């Protein structure tokens, strides 16, 4: 059986530098990523955490690759639920490629076990997050998505 894997892709009217800033800056991620700030010293091998304003950690992982402004890869563990938090970490990869006046952003989320319970839960979440990120960069306003509110209530 194949291990589950999701790929998301969009084109955003922005520069690679600005898109890189959006995926690595805590003030940016707070606006489109379930109201959590990314926290990392950007040295491969370092811990990476997504924190709410009150300090709770919603997801965490280890930084694997950091090649600004092109490639960001980290392991990812979902902490919203105690049972799900016991699953081994999966891997998230962001790839940024300039395409004329736009950037292609591809997000690959893989390295799940075949019977992962986290995997079926994340699909809708990523679509909303990426769509909101695109809106933030192109219009200056992130989208108010349902997941933002739910995730901030449901953290374990």
């Amino acid at each position: 059986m194949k291990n589950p894997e999701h790929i998301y892709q969009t084109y955003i009217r922005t520069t690679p530098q600005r898109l890189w800033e959006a995926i690595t800056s805590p003030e940016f991620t707070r606006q489109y990523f379930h109201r959590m700030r990314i926290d990392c010293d950007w040295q491969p091998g370092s811990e990476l955490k997504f924190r709410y304003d009150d300090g709770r950690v919603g997801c965490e992982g280890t930084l694997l690759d950091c090649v600004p402004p092109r490639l960001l890869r980290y392991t990812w563990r979902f902490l919203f639920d105690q049972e799900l938090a016991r699953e081994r970490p999966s891997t998230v990869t962001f790839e940024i490629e300039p395409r004329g006046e736009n950037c292609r952003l591809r997000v690959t989320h893989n390295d799940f076990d075949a019977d992962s319970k986290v995997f079926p839960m994340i699909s809708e979440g990523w679509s909303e997050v990426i769509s909101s990120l695109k809106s933030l960069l192109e219009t200056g306003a992130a989208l108010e998505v349902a997941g933002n509110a739910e995730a901030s209530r449901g953290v374990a």
Partner: protein
Amino acid sequence: MERVFKALSDSTRRRILDRLFDTDSLSLGELCGGLEMSRQAVSKHLGILEVAGLVIAVRRGREKRHFLNPVPIQEIGDRWIAKYARKQTRAIAALKGALEEDSHEES
């Protein structure tokens, strides 16, 4: 967005998206298995879905695997559906759903 609407306007292409929603990462051969049409026809539909960004083809080992990319549909939802699907339209849709379910049960 024009390309996404065009890609979604064909029932075979919508079936391909449904197949990929159920089982991501299918090869062309695996996709052909569930559709009664030639490999060339399926390949052509996949091409239109790829241009629209709804399907992403990625090389995995020796094979090309196809993934559903739901982001363009999310973007259509944000731009064209959320705006119009207000409470009243949801209520009418729910009423229609309930009435049709009733008549279905009766028949």
